[in-house]
């Protein structure tokens, strides 16, 4: 075991995958010599050479388009989009190409690529460094969508994603890179150094895609969360004293329906939280699933806490971010219903 930040764990994940498999290549904007603006690929070019880790021209459609071509020719590209907010030029390649290569060619060609992108807010990045576009991917047949919430999962899930035979969108909550963040922005920051999930196995291991994890067992209400919101939900449970069961979905697609239904059937209540805007967010899918599968166990209406339906603001970041106060209020209201 080793102590790692989430950035180190992600780098280590790529390092392990590149070390085991020559077909894994890593590229993106500023990814080569510099090692990425968040330093996720630091040292990889030096270790594996320029033809396996390099700077891409600033063309997201080019980055993903070439990754698809490489995958068709036997490689396993793991590419970086500098911020999820900049994936839109690649949206055509991701949703209309990568997602459907297998289906439309009847597996004549496949597309084992990973597209990493920092996601979410909490860094005063304004509307173009804060977005959470996961629902724009979960709505597309053929993609897998992963959002880790800690170093351990990040490394295990990333290796699993790279080894997966299909395209995986790997969303990294940037506010968690250097430490857990529970939304109490006014409190001093603590790093991953003392957090149990900052302890990461060395070498190869995987966290299988499609499996949620219970981060806090509880009897009263189920909280479905992923990424940064896992930590916010834990803080809200702590702050309110409500015995919430907090589930970290880890993989949004394919989702872990068994874990979701088992918990909601036990607690009879459900609160769903995400940073992304509310309307047509992934929370809507989760709410529908809970309604379809747990209707007769529900003792209160399902509640969603999410980003407001506005573009992500700059100055009003903490009014926008669904912090522990808003999640706590939802827990309380759900318990009172």
């Amino acid at each position: 075991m080793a102590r790692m930040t989430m950035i180190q764990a992600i780098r280590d994940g790529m390092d392990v995958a590149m070390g085991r498999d020559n077909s894994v290549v890593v590229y993106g904007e500023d990814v080569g010599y510099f090692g990425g603006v968040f330093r996720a690929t630091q040292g990889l070019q030096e270790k594996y050479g320029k033809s396996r880790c390099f700077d891409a021209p600033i063309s997201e459609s080019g980055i993903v388009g070439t990754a698809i071509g490489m995958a068709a020719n036997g490689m396993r590209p793991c590419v970086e989009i500098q911020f999820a907010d900049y994936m839109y030029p690649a949206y055509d390649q991701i949703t209309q190409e990568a997602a459907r290569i297998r289906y439309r060619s009847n597996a004549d060609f496949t597309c084992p690529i990973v597209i990493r992108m920092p996601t979410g807010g909490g860094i005063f990045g304004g509307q173009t460094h804060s977005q959470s576009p996961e629902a724009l991917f979960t709505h597309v047949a053929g993609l897998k969508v992963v959002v880790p919430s800690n170093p351990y999962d990040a490394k295990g899930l990333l290796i699993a994603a790279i080894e997966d035979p299909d395209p995986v969108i790997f969303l990294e909550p940037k506010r968690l890179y250097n430490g857990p963040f529970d939304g109490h922005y006014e409190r001093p920051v603590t790093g991953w150094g003392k957090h149990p999930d900052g302890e990461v196995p060395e070498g190869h291991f995987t966290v299988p895609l499609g499996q949620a994890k219970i981060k806090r067992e509880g009897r009263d209400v189920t909280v479905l969360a992923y990424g940064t919101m896992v930590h916010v939900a834990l803080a809200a449970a702590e702050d309110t004293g409500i015995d919430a069961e907090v589930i970290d979905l880890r993989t949004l697609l394919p989702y872990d329906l068994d874990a979701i239904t088992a918990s909601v059937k036990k607690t009879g209540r459900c609160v769903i939280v995400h940073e992304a805007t509310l309307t047509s967010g992934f929370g809507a899918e989760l709410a529908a699933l809970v309604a379809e599968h747990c209707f007769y166990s529900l003792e209160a209406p399902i509640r969603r806490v999410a980003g407001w339906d506005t573009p992500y603001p700059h100055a009003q970041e903490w009014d926008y971010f669904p912090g522990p106060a808003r999640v706590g209020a939802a827990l309380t209201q759900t318990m009172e219903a």
Partner: protein
Amino acid sequence: MPKPLSLHVPEPEVRPGGVPDFSGVHISPAGEVGRPPVDVDPREIRDMAFSIIRVLNREGEAVGPWAGSLSDDQLTEGLRHMMLLRALDARMIIAQRQGKTSFYIQHLGEEAVSTAFRKVLNKGDMNFATYRQAGLLIADDYPLETMINQIYANSEDPLKGRQLPTLYSVREQGFFTLSGNLATQFPQAVGWAMASAIKGETNIAAGWIGDGSTAESDFHAGLVFASTFKAPVVLNVVNNQWAISTFQGIARGGVGTFAARGLGYGMPSLRVDGNDYLAVHAVGLWAAERARRNLGPTLIEYVTYRAGAHSTSDDPSAYRPKEESAAWPLGDPVIRLKAHLIVKGVWSEDRHAQLEAEMLDTVVTAQKAAESHGTLHSDNRPSVRDMFEGVYAEMPPHLRRQRQETGV
């Protein structure tokens, strides 16, 4: 058996620890490149995509066919604009470190490009800029205090705290709302210009993009529309050699130039010394005149150097030698214009030092005024209401409900 293939990955000449070397950069002598008539057939000036139009020589004299577009007073004003922008940048970088704002983007070394270009435009023309052309506003006397209010996201921020610092929007002064998403503005500039033509008006547009961002599809989309419809637009590529940590060779590829990208689209494509205020102005004027005479678009590559960090989040010593900026062969735009004015006998070291102090004073005064309206983390900042407003012309019911949930 054929030899196995191998991947070519371009690398800059030097990295940290190395000695800066720009000997491979071909610099045309000042005055050497000719000045064709604005209605020239683009096919006759293809070589201009590979030379560099320069006016100021080493001695500080203005030479050649592109000299003479500006009076002494205009040149002194230009110096003032560049120095004001430089002073603003220096103060805002400190303000960012002090936590008065979250982020700042500076122009160090590139001040001539946007300040000189502004002077070729008329009222009603529109710029579709990037974050590194605040000189367009400075040279049009946009109030500094308002700029700083935006940077501080305070209660007087005209953009209500919604936008990242430096991403201004000033329609009145020909400055289209800035985006953080690279290259999107390039085809938009062309569309604005096409509208001017459709409506039979006389205004033109200017599109702006960085060297790195020319790799985006939107750059090429802008070029093809501009070319096909002969849009009245000036398309500006600011080649400051770097895109964060990535040297310009990654976007440029091969051995061409950014200007040469325009050749395939059949448009006049010029390269100009971006650190030469006089050259930038003269070339901008030429292109603007072409656009106004309905002769179509021009692509201009400004050869310059990003002497500072990419942004306040960046530390360039991690990827390029510290001495590289001092070794840049085209020098510093402020020092070069100053030298020219001294050679002309209309300027002196004393007056320069005086102006420098005055510019700092002007910025500090504006800064104090802005600070009286708050800074990023102070209490007097844009409201939660401001966050909900302006998403649509009229707030739809679902958003109104969300706003009410916050109690405002």
